[in-house]
């Protein structure tokens, strides 16, 4: 089955530092989403980015489809960025069944 590998498993930063989170996947991903999970549990969609580069605020997602990898860059990290970041893929455009990675736990210290 599909596999999604995220790295690093955890990351500790000082406020203001940048972070680069990686996602590698084993099969074609027609759909790729990055999510942020609050410590309380809510999953928030950050990017729907099956290919190319997208920006929102301090976040940038870059997906290289033919290399089966995606990255999430956080610039000038803040303590409120702390939480778990998940990459999830689906092989087809018409299936909602996502396969998730195990996440990257980010801790940003003041």
């Amino acid at each position, binding site marked *: 089955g599909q596999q999604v590998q995220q790295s690093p498993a955890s990351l500790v930063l000082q406020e203001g530092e940048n972070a680069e989170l990686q996602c590698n996947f084993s099969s074609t991903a027609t759909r790729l989403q990055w999510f942020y999970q609050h410590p309380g*549990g*809510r*999953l928030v*969609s950050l990017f*729907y980015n099956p290919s190319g580069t997208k920006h929102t605020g301090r976040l940038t997602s870059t997906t290289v489809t033919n290399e089966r990898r995606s990255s999430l860059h956080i610039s000038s990290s803040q303590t409120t960025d702390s939480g778990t970041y998940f990459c999830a893929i*689906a092989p087809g455009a018409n299936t*909602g069944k996502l396969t998730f990675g*195990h*996440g990257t736990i980010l801790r940003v210290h003041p």
Partner: protein
Amino acid sequence: NSKVIQTPRYLVKGQGQKAKMRCIPEKGHPVVFWYQQNKNNEFKFLINFQNQEVLQQIDMTEKRFSAECPSNSPCSLEIQSSEAGDSALYLCASSQGAGNTLYFGEGSRLIVV
């Protein structure tokens, strides 16, 4: 921001008891998903619906899990006889279509004691 509403936020059940969770999808989203997230951050797709019809589901061979999305009522996921291994965060998501962005609710955290 997602407007998917899940209730209850927490439920504690004894082994063998029923556990029922509800989800109101975002308005205008006909597709609803249920996922289970365990303590190791492993997500398991359970089932999804388009309107009231099941699109895909795992092989619930134990038949302890059932789900429905009736018209004009919240969707629901029910575990007939809870087991310790069912303790997890149950996440509901909705989307405008099977290939569109998924928006998740806050989840229902089930603890089976």
